[in-house]
């Protein structure tokens, strides 16, 4: 248990240090060392507990529950204080804070809060999440050291508040570890709300009007989810025959008779879909893109939003075969389809990544809602692969933005000549998101095969089929922009900082490695977790020997062919591109009307006339609200 406590407490301790240290070389070194220690800690955890199945721990500390309750109240007070800056239309935020605090206070002070014997636990899935938080989270913190320095260099008008930045980032890491290790739901709830707070503060970091409003919106929508969580705890405490807030007990009860605990589970899953920005809550994640890029990578793709799907995956065995679970899955699938289509219309790289994140989380929610062994296997794999690839892409976009001054895809033309290293990293990330044999494709494939076996209808599989098509479009379009070589392309100047390179190359290597080693990952962690829950032999769908060999061949080809290409440079004869004979040089210039010199500029298709972001969002929100209402209505069936 020591390593567990280390992971829970060390980042929080370091956060206090970073709250006071100014951004100098000593603090930077301290951040790097802390990141390394956290990563090492999570690896140690994985090695130490691997293969040991579920284990829970008692935490011996006086008045711990009271401390947590006090923390919740303090948090609510702090949030209320922060609400001083709200506008009229944000009135619901303090209301939500008060209601939530009221519910928790009622539960605690009425003496009804049951004891939880073992407040912490660990199982294979927690280990996987801990690895993601520890490794990906640490790499992003490392990246942030140089990024934030350049960020303030580029924005001299912004007040340098890096002390609160790194304080919140590390405090958030502790909270995330708490989410994945907490067996006591009241503790989980506090950690959950801390992540909401972290998101709120970090989104508002730029302190511009836009950032502040987006921060409040994120706070409000996440608090709405948090209200669901609090109501879930209230139900568990007040309306259950045998009150319990022990996560493991709830799962055991639920697997025996899902009807017993369905209501609180659905309420907590409601919190889950709010935190993972599913429709109708997506707007907060899109607004969160104004935050500095490490925030987008850490909170809004790799970790915090994963807390949302983490809790849904946790409850998946209870959701299996229920109508409520099926409608939850539909919320995810519909989100996947609609946000994938909308992503086609975006040219802002971070918005594309945001929509893609929401879409992939939707897929995970769909898998978890169905809750069969196969879909759960797919869901966990999706989580791993998405955290790595998306983190990589966000960090890549951040570095690119600092070098070319823009986060618009249309400005990334010729990146392969201008900034080959960054281009390669982006290519690995983008391929990792949608192409065979990389991770996301494997997971999506597993998803599809699992969905087809779901009873009732092939509806989920059809939604996946239709949703995959636009993803191919917008990823390849972006990829095409990066690899296009314009006539006047030249190498960029100014090096990318070492911290950023370390993070980028590590994540790129991880993207390739996880794809190459996914059978191992499945065998070592994911399959045991699923088998342990469902008592089935082997949940790994589609993971036949033949398929593994073929995917290895595909991966090998993809890695070797560029190397072969570079090793054998051909002597080519270069001619200009075809411009109807009007070329003026080897580049993009041509003679236009009246003999004037014109320049051929090319843009991607965004199909905004064909797919309307606004109309699709409205349709998605309406549809998802109907599905959620239905989900709550069928809880008793």
């Amino acid at each position: 248990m020591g390593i567990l406590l280390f992971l829970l407490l060390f980042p929080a301790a370091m956060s206090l240090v970073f709250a006071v240290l100014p951004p100098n070389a000593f603090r930077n070194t301290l951040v790097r060392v802390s990141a390394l220690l956290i990563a090492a800690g999570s690896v140690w955890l994985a090695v130490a507990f691997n293969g040991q199945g579920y284990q829970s721990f008692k935490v011996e500390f006086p008045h711990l529950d009271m401390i947590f309750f006090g923390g919740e109240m303090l948090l609510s007070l702090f949030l209320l204080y922060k609400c001083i800056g709200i506008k009229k239309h944000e009135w619901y935020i303090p209301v939500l804070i008060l209601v939530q605090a009221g519910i928790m206070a009622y539960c605690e002070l009425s003496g009804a809060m049951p004891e939880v014997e073992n407040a912490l636990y660990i199982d294979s899935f927690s280990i996987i999440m801990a690895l993601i938080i520890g490794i990906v989270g640490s790499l992003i913190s490392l990246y942030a050291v140089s990024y934030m320095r350049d960020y303030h260099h580029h924005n001299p008008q912004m007040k340098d508040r890096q002390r609160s930045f790194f304080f919140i980032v590390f405090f958030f890491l502790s909270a995330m570890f708490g989410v994945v290790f907490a067996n006591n739901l009241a503790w989980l709830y506090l950690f959950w709300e801390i992540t909401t707070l972290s998101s709120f503060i970090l989104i508002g970091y730029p302190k511009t009007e836009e950032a502040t409003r987006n921060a409040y919106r994120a706070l409000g929508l996440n608090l709405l989810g948090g209200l669901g969580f609090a109501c879930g705890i209230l139900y568990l405490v007040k309306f259950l025959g045998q009150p319990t807030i022990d996560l493991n007990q709830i799962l055991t009860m639920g697997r025996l008779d899902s009807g017993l605990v369905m209501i609180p589970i659905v309420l907590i899953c409601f919190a889950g879909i709010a935190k993972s920005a599913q429709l109708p809550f997506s707007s907060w994640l899109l607004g969160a893109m104004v935050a500095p890029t490490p925030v987008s990578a850490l909170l809004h793709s790799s970790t915090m939003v994963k807390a949302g799907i983490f809790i849904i995956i946790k409850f998946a065995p209870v959701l299996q075969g229920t109508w409520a679970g099926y409608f939850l899955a539909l919320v995810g699938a519909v989100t996947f389809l609609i946000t994938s289509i909308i992503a086609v219309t975006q040219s802002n790289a971070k918005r594309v990544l945001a929509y893609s994140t929401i879409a992939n989380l939707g897929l995970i929610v769909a898998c978890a809602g169905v809750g069969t062994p196969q879909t759960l296997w797919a869901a966990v794999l999706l989580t791993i692969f998405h955290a790595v690839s998306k983190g990589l892409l966000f960090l890549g976009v951040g570095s690119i933005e600092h070098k070319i001054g823009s986060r618009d895809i249309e400005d990334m033309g010729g990146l392969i000549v201008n900034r080959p290293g960054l281009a390669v990293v982006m290519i690995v990330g983008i391929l990792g998101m949608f192409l065979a044999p990389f991770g996301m494709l494997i997971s999506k494939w597993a998803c599809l095969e699992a969905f087809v076996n779901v009873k009732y209808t092939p509806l989920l599989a059809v939604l996946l089929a239709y949703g995959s098509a636009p993803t191919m479009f917008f990823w390849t379009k972006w990829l095409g922009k990066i690899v296009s070589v314009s006539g006047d392309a030249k190498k960029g100047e100014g090096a990318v900082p070492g911290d950023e390179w370390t993070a980028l190359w590590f994540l790129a290597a991880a993207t390739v490695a996880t794809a190459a080693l996914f059978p191992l990952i499945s065998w070592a962690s994911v399959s045991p977790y699923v088998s342990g829950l469902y008592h089935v032999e082997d949940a790994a769908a589609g993971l036949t020997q033949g398929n593994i060999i073929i995917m290895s061949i595909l991966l090998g080809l993809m890695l070797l062919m560029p190397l072969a290409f570079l090793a054998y440079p051909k002597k080519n004869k270069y001619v200009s591109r075809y411009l109807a004979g009007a070329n003026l040089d080897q580049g993009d210039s041509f003679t236009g009307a009246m003999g004037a010199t014109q320049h051929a500029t090319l843009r991607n298709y965004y199909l905004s006339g064909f797919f309307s972001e606004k109309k699709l969002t409205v349709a998605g929100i309406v549809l998802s609200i109907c599905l959620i209402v239905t989900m709550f209505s069928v809880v008793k069936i």
Partner: protein
Amino acid sequence: MSYLKKSPWIIHYDGSSCNGCDIEVLACLTPLYDVERFGIINTGNPKHADVFLITGSINEQNVEVVRNIYNQMPDPKVVAAIGICATSGGIFRECYNVKGGVDTVIPVDIYIPGCAVRPEAIIDGVVAALGVLEKKAAALKSMKASA
């Protein structure tokens, strides 16, 4: 054995022609003459073409264009000047804005005079151009072999 003769792809360009010769060129592609029997395809892309059919004379405006298109064609290639204007400037030869026939800009391999040139003459000329193409291909191959 070079397959150029069996699959000559043409690109057709109108320099400053009155379109009379162009219409005759296009007539060759119609069912009446059907040059696809010889594997001839009219691709509009110089990078895909083997035979460059030009009609009309050369003036200031199209000098660079003709040169660009010619340069964008991969070897081996032949140029066929269709009609008397492409051959030598035709009746417009003395005009102040006409530089002359196609050979003022790029090397021409086949001259097919006429005003407007008849489809039979075009086909005859293109077939002769294929012979020149074959010779060029052979020369290219032996040059590559000796290099």
